[in-house]
């Protein structure tokens, strides 16, 4: 059996070999410092730095003069085949025009001024740094990325004109410190930076960004002059950003307040939200969302809200919703369509319980007897309760004293209290004639069924037919 250690060792070996192989494929870099004693000038090899008609890089054959494989090992160095991708305006032919101030007076720039660190040894070559440029172009600037807006275009091309940059290069752009500000995402942050210059859009923005980048978030791009001032360049989307909800959206009462916020300042919402993003929840009503822009060409996709219930719809809301729905139906209609209501209030015969918990069938006697909720809001006593009870034999279809209520021998004598307390439950199994057997004033045993709160005159005025069921035409008056 192969041990875990063996597998680990094998994995390490494979990794090392793979990394070594990858490294072997990279062209070797020329070690300037190692050749410090060999080359007295830069332009000996880099003639292009002085004469634009010449090559910037030496021919690799020149290396073989020494590295012939006999006195020195062969080298595989090759000059770059194409220029390094860049958005710099700099060109070496401009160097003769550049000067620098020194204690000794104004001096022309030399190669060492940019490519060797101050005080560094000869041939300790490095790439020119932005700080080197800023030493002359912005001596007050302490950090390259914190340079003022007016300085950027001194050295850099706008992104849309930096054709040599590849998306990977753009994706690797470092973010300036301003982008780390807490409010940078807001209008007071990047919005103020973009529009805070005399130009339609700050030049500093154009160095790294184009209009396509703004469309990642901005639904209101056509309405924003600063965004429209930017060029169009799909490569700008290489800088990956994600539209994140602002802090206000995470506040617990945001759902209840966001309508008022929209009415107060629709512009803010319209930055990230399309009309359709409102409709993700507010399906039945398009009145409020009409203040926002509809999605379309030239606009960002914007926020994609996910429909979720507000906090008020939490624990036990299904049992509490009737109060709120009855008082403010328009509030419900903000998110719900009528089908939502009918799902429970007009349930299908073949539906499993939706409003009720699973297995409610076994619990329903207790819930129904004391009306945990009003069953009649969703179920018709005749078609729902009585049909099912009749099918199960749980109806009075013969003599009243059948013995079904056998928990007490005297139930019939004392059933009045149960009936007045749970009359709806009684009607799920009993019909009127069952009661009229005893409670009718005409042909029955004349037991008076009227109890507390009974207003005979009022009911007779409203519907005397009800009275005739027991009293016939001789309806008594009080």
């Amino acid at each position, binding site marked *: 059996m192969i041990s875990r250690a063996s597998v680990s060792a094998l994995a390490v070996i494979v990794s090392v070999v793979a990394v070594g192989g990858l490294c072997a494929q990279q062209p070797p870099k020329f070690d300037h410092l190692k050749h410090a004693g060999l080359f007295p000038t830069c332009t000996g090899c880099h003639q292009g730095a002085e004469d634009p008609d010449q090559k910037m890089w030496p021919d690799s054959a020149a290396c073989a003069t020494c590295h012939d494989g006999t006195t020195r090992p062969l080298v595989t160095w090759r000059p770059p085949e194409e220029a390094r991708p860049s958005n710099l305006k700099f060109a070496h032919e401009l160097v003769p025009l550049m000067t620098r101030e020194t204690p000794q007076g104004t001096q022309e720039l030399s190669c060492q001024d940019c490519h060797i660190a101050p005080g560094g040894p000869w041939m300790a070559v490095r790439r020119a740094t932005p700080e080197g440029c800023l030493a002359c172009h912005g001596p007050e600037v302490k950090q390259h990325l914190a340079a003022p807006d007016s300085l950027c275009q001194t050295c850099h091309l706008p992104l849309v004109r930096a054709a040599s940059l590849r998306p990977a290069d753009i994706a690797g752009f470092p973010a300036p410190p301003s982008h780390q500000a807490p409010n940078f995402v807001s209008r007071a942050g990047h919005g103020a930076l973009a529009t805070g210059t005399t130009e339609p859009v700050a030049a500093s923005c154009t160095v790294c960004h184009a209009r396509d980048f703004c469309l990642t978030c901005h639904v209101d791009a056509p309405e924003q002059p600063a965004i429209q001032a930017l060029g169009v360049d799909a490569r700008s989307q290489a800088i990956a950003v994600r539209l994140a909800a602002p802090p206000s959206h995470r506040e617990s009462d945001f759902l209840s307040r966001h309508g008022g916020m929209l009415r107060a300042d629709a512009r803010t919402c319209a930055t990230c939200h399309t009309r359709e993003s409102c409709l993700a929840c507010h399906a039945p009503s398009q009145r409020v969302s009409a203040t926002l822009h509809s999605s379309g060409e030239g606009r960002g996709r914007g926020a994609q809200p996910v429909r979720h219930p507000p906090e008020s719809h939490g624990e036990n809301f299904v049992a509490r919703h009737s109060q709120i729905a009855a*008082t403010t139906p328009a509030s419900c209609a903000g998110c719900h369509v009528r089908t939502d209501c009918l799902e429970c209030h007009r349930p299908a015969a073949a539906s499993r319980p939706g409003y009720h918990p699973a297995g409610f069938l076994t619990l329903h006697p207790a819930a129904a007897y004391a009306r945990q909720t009003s069953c009649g809001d969703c179920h018709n006593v005749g078609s729902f309760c009585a049909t099912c009870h009749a099918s199960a034999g749980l109806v009075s279809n013969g003599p009243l004293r059948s013995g079904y209520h056998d928990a007490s021998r005297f139930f019939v004598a004392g059933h009045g209290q149960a009936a007045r307390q749970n009359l709806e439950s009684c009607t799920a199994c009993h019909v009127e004639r069952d009661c009229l057997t005893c409670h009718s004033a005409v042909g029955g045993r004349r037991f008076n069924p009227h109890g507390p709160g009974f207003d005979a005159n009022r009911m007779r005025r409203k519907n005397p037919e009800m009275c005739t069921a027991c009293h016939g035409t001789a309806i008594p008056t009080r």
Partner: protein
Amino acid sequence: MNPRLQLAAAGVTLLLFGRESRVSAQGYRLRLDTRAQGVAYRGVTLDSIPVTDTLSTPGSGPTSPEGFAVLCRSGVAYCSFFRPGPWRNAGPLTSTADLTVWGLGRPGLSVHAAVRLGVEFGSADVWPGTNPAVQLLEGYAEYAATRTTTRLGRQVVASRLGTTGFDGAGMVLRDARRGVEVQGYLGWGLARGVALPVTSPALNPLDDFQPRQRQLVAGAGAGWTTRPVDLRLDYLREVDPGTDHFVSERVGVGATLRPIPRVQLAGGADYDIAAGWWGSAEASLTYTQSKVQASVGARRYRPHFDLWTIWGAFSPVPYHAAQASVAVTAIRRLELRGRWEGYEFEEAETATPLFNAKRGGWRWELGGTYHPLTGLTVDASYREEFGPGAGVAAVAGTITYEPTRHLTVVLLGSQATRPLEFRFNEAEVRVVGVDAQLEPSPRVRLGASADRYREIHRRPDAGAFDWNQWRLSARVVLLFGSSADLRGLPPSIRLLPGGRSER
């Protein structure tokens, strides 16, 4: 109004509003929801035997030769008892088509219809809801403008007086700036809780008294909504057109107050003008926070009966209840909940020395939901309920596995002890089940479930027969729609209208 008249009304509306441009539907949504269920069970059958055939056992009452406890009354030659009923098989299949059409030539004009087709593949009289075979839940033409919404056809109005269905016309006038809304409607009414008129034979399985004509319904409502307060007043009257007598007349008022953030006070009451008494009422104070939700409240419940029945004359008494509930996210992934309600009926004034029913009761429940892993939810609860008529003590649990948002599998189990007060019936019911929902595409949803009910009767005679049963169900939801005017909308909108299960 019968369906033909409604269609005619809808057609007239289309002609009136749609004459300015082509009358061709530019947008529609059609949701077909088909469900089937299979149930087999047996109930009880009343039987009797001559007194002379009964057996007497020392220490117990008379029984039948088969061992059923029988009820014999003095002076009656026969004793009665309940024996197991025949097996009943129910196989209801329902298909509900929910259609919305708009783009009819005038902005704001639309037509809505919800039609349900029901077929019973088992015994015709076993399961409610498939008779008649075609039921129009809603079917109306709507014209919605900024300040008005008008509907013509079969519609349902929800208010604190219930969900009132009718065939007729309704209008809502609103002033959004002031938060004022006024509503009125008029039509031929439907029975409560169902899309059928009160004259339908399907509502009278026990051959009780039934009205010969549909009632006329007239209702009005007014609401005022501001940031801290919502107020609503509703009035509803139903009249028998044959006699001009009232079927019902009620008024209701409701209010919601939001005095401070996270706190809401809601309440309301209804008054039965016809009977001259207060109906149901409730008030609740709710605190809502992301990790804590709590409410306390009081309520009163009195059933409402139409005046074409005699039930209102029997003076149903209300009960008064106090309640409280709380839900807490105790730790990450764990939510705990609890609720309690205690209630007591008003004095029924029917005291007899030989028998008294309970006057009060209580309900409580404790439960928790735990999400151990993403896509896995475990829920368990225990509840007790004890009051007049019946009680229950039940433990229930579910395990929900949702590996993707397109598939959900739920395993459930419960065990309940459920005694009855008025019948000797100590029984224990155990339920196990599985439910699976699959959404292979945004326009297709499939579901299937199977539940097994096993009942154990604790009864010393032959009446302790089981009520065991299987329940099988299946569901297919298909969504169709044209989106010419809604291109680019999020999927949640393109799929509307949708039910609760679409959330």
